[in-house]
C-alpha cells in the first residue's frame, strides 16, 4: 500500500463565501436587474422545489484502486446522497443549492447558484455561482437514478498521475509512477516527495464556479461558461488566476438522436506549484488543460446507446532532463448500451478505454512509453425497479491496467438507489 496524503481542509472544495456572496447579491431586491412593472413585490412569492437522492454501493475491496475517485473514495463502496432545493425568487430568477455527502466523512455544498432568465419568452439562461457541469454528456447523469450502471466512465473518474499541486520533475519521475494515480509522489517543496491523488480527465464529482450562459430550444442546446478551475480540477476559489472557458453544443437532428460536442481550456496547476518551479521552467506557462469531447446518444424502442470520446492535453512544465514531452495527452472512449427487458428491469453494458500519449525517458530502455498506464473497463449488469424511485442494481466490472504495473481485477457490485 502506498501512503496517500489527505487534502487539508483548505484544499478540499468547500462552500465558498464568495459564491454565497455572489448568489446572495443576486437575490437581493434591486441587485442584478432593476425591478420592472409587473415583477413580484419585494417579498417574493417564490416557489420552493426540493429533491434528493441516496445510494449505497457495495463491492469487494478494490486492491488496485481502479475505482478510486479524486475524493479518495471507492465508488463501488460508497454511500452517497444529496438534498437539493430551488427557490423561485421571481419569475426571472431561481436560486438553487444542493448539499451532498459521500460516506460519513465528506459533506459539501455541491451546487449553489442563481439562474436568471432575462426574457421569459426566450429560452436563454444565465447561471452564476457553483454551476452544473458543462463539458461532456455524462457529468449530469452520474447519480444513481440516471446512471444505468454503478461506476462512472473512466474519463470522469480514473485518476491519472498528473497533479494540480505538484509536477513531475522529469520524464523518469512520470514513468516511474505509471498506474499509480491514487498516490502520486512528486516533490512539493518539502525534503522528499509527498503523496497525493492525481487528477482525472474530467472531475465529475465536483462542480466548478463561475458564470454560464445557455440557450436551448427543441433542436439545439448551447452553453458557454467562464469558470474558476479546469475540467480536471474544478474549484470554488481560483487558485492560479487563470480562468476556464468551456462550451457545449448539442444538436438533435431527430428526437432519436443527440449529437454533442464540448470543448474547454483552463489552467489546472495551482499557484504554489507554478511559483515553485525553477525560473526557466516558469516561462513555459500557462499550464493549461485543453479538452475536446464528442458524444452521441441514439434511442429506439427499448434501446438506448451512448458513446463519447474525450481528448485532453495538459501542458506540463519542463524542469530537468530527461524532459517530459509536453503537452501530455489522454484519450478516453466510452460506449454504453441499455435495453429495457421488462417495465421494471433492464440490462446495460459499458466499455471504456483510456489511452495516453508517449514520453521518452531513460526508463523502459529509452523506448517511448505511455506516460501513465492505459486502463480498460467493462461493466455489465442490470437494474430492477422496486418502485419508480427505488432501484436495485447488480453489475460485474472488470478492469485492466496495462504496463509496468499490469493488473487485472474483477468485481461483483450491488447498489440500492433511491430518489425523490
Amino acid at each position, binding site marked *: 500500500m502506498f501512503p496517500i496524503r489527505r487534502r487539508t481542509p483548505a484544499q478540499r472544495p468547500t462552500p465558498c463565501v464568495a459564491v454565497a456572496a455572489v448568489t446572495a447579491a443576486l437575490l437581493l431586491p434591486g441587485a442584478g436587474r432593476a425591478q420592472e412593472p409587473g415583477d413580484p413585490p419585494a417579498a417574493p412569492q417564490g416557489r420552493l422545489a426540493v429533491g434528493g437522492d441516496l445510494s449505497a454501493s457495495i463491492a469487494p475491496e478494490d486492491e488496485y484502486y481502479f475505482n478510486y475517485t479524486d475524493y479518495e473514495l471507492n465508488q463501488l463502496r460508497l454511500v452517497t446522497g444529496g438534498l*437539493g432545493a430551488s427557490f423561485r425568487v421571481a419569475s426571472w430568477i431561481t436560486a438553487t443549492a444542493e448539499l451532498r455527502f459521500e460516506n460519513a466523512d465528506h459533506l459539501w455544498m455541491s451546487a449553489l447558484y442563481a439562474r436568471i432568465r432575462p426574457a421569459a419568452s426566450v429560452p436563454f439562461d444565465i447561471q452564476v455561482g457553483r454551476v452544473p457541469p458543462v463539458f461532456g454528456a455524462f457529468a449530469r447523469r452520474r447519480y444513481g437514478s440516471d446512471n444505468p450502471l454503478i461506476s462512472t466512465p473512466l474519463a470522469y473518474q480514473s485518476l491519472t498521475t498528473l497533479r494540480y499541486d505538484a509536477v513531475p520533475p522529469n520524464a523518469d519521475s512520470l514513468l516511474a509512477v505509471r498506474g499509480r494515480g491514487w498516490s502520486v509522489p512528486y516533490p512539493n517543496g518539502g525534503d522528499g516527495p509527498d503523496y497525493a491523488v492525481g487528477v482525472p480527465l474530467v472531475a465529475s464529482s465536483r462542480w466548478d464556479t463561475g458564470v454560464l450562459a445557455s440557450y436551448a430550444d427543441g433542436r439545439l442546446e448551447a452553453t458557454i461558461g467562464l469558470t474558476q478551475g479546469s475540467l480536471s480540477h474544478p474549484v470554488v476559489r481560483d487558485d492560479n488566476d487563470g480562468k476556464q472557458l468551456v462550451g457545449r453544443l448539442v444538436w438533435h437532428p431527430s428526437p432519436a438522436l443527440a449529437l454533442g460536442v464540448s470543448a474547454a481550456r483552463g489552467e489546472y496547476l495551482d499557484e504554489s506549484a507554478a511559483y515553485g518551479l525553477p525560473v526557466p521552467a516558469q516561462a513555459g506557462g500557462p499550464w493549461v488543460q485543453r479538452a475536446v469531447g464528442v458524444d452521441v446518444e441514439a434511442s429506439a424502442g*427499448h434501446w438506448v446507446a451512448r458513446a463519447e470520446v474525450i481528448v485532453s492535453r495538459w501542458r506540463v512544465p519542463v524542469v530537468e532532463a530527461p524532459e517530459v514531452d509536453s503537452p501530455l495527452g489522454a484519450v478516453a472512449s466510452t460506449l454504453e448500451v441499455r435495453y429495457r427487458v421488462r417495465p*421494471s428491469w433492464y440490462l446495460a453494458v459499458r466499455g471504456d478505454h483510456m489511452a495516453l500519449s508517449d514520453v521518452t525517458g531513460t526508463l523502459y530502455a529509452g523506448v517511448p512509453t505511455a506516460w501513465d498506464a492505459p486502463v480498460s473497463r467493462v461493466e455489465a449488469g442490470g437494474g430492477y425497479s422496486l418502485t419508480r424511485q427505488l432501484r436495485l442494481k447488480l453489475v460485474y466490472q472488470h478492469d485492466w491496467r496495462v504496463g509496468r504495473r499490469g493488473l487485472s481485477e474483477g468485481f461483483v457490485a450491488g447498489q440500492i438507489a433511491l430518489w425523490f
Partner: protein
Amino acid sequence: MTMRPVALAVGAALLAGSPGPAQKATGVIRGRIEVQLPPAIFERNPGVSELGGAKARRPPDRRRSVVYLETAPRAAFEEPQPQRARIDQRNETFVPHVLAITVGTTVDFPNSDVTYHNVFSLSKAKSFDLGRYAAGRSKAVTFDRPGIVRVFCEIHSHMNAFILVFGHRFFSVTDAEGRYRIEGVPPGTYTVSVWNEALPGTSRSVTIPPAGGDVELDVTLSRERERP
C-alpha cells in the same frame, strides 16, 4: 393520497347488496367535489441532471377527482363494448392527468411533442413499457384488470398521470369546477366513493328511489380527518 385498488377490484365482483335485475327507471348521481388542497409548499426538484435546465411547466391539476360506485348494480355486467380512450403527451405533460376507464379499454398514447417519450407503468394493475417513440407516433395499451395505474415517462421524470380502471361503468371524473355526473344508475342503495390523488378519499351512501330521478351529493375533500 388514498388509493382504493381493492375497492375497485372488488366492486366489479361484488353483487351482494346491489339491486336486482336492471329496471327501466334509472337515476343520476350528481354533485360537486370540493377539493381543499393546502397550498403546495414544495414541489419536486427537477433533479441534479436537470439543474439549471428546468423549464417552467404547468403543474398537473390535482383537483380532478373520480367519483364511483363501490358496488356496482347488475347492469354493470352487461356485455361491455370495446372502448378506446386517449392520453396525449403535449408540452411534456400527460393530458388528461386523470383518466377513468372500464376494464378492456384500450388507451392510446400519442406523442404530440417534438421530443421522444417513453410511457411506462410499474403498477400492479398494469405494468407496461412502450419504449421510446417519436412525435406523431402513437402506441396503445389495453387495461384488462381493475385498479389504479400510475403512468410515467421514462425520459421526463416530471410527467405523470393516473388511470383508474373500473369493472363497471358507474364512475365520473370531475370537471374543472369539481362537478360530476353518474348516469343510468338503477334504483337501490349504493356506496359512492371519491378518489383524489392528493387527499384521502371518502365514501357516502346514496339511494336512488324506485322511480329513479336525480340525487345530489356534494363532498368536500380535505386533509382533516372525517368525524365518525
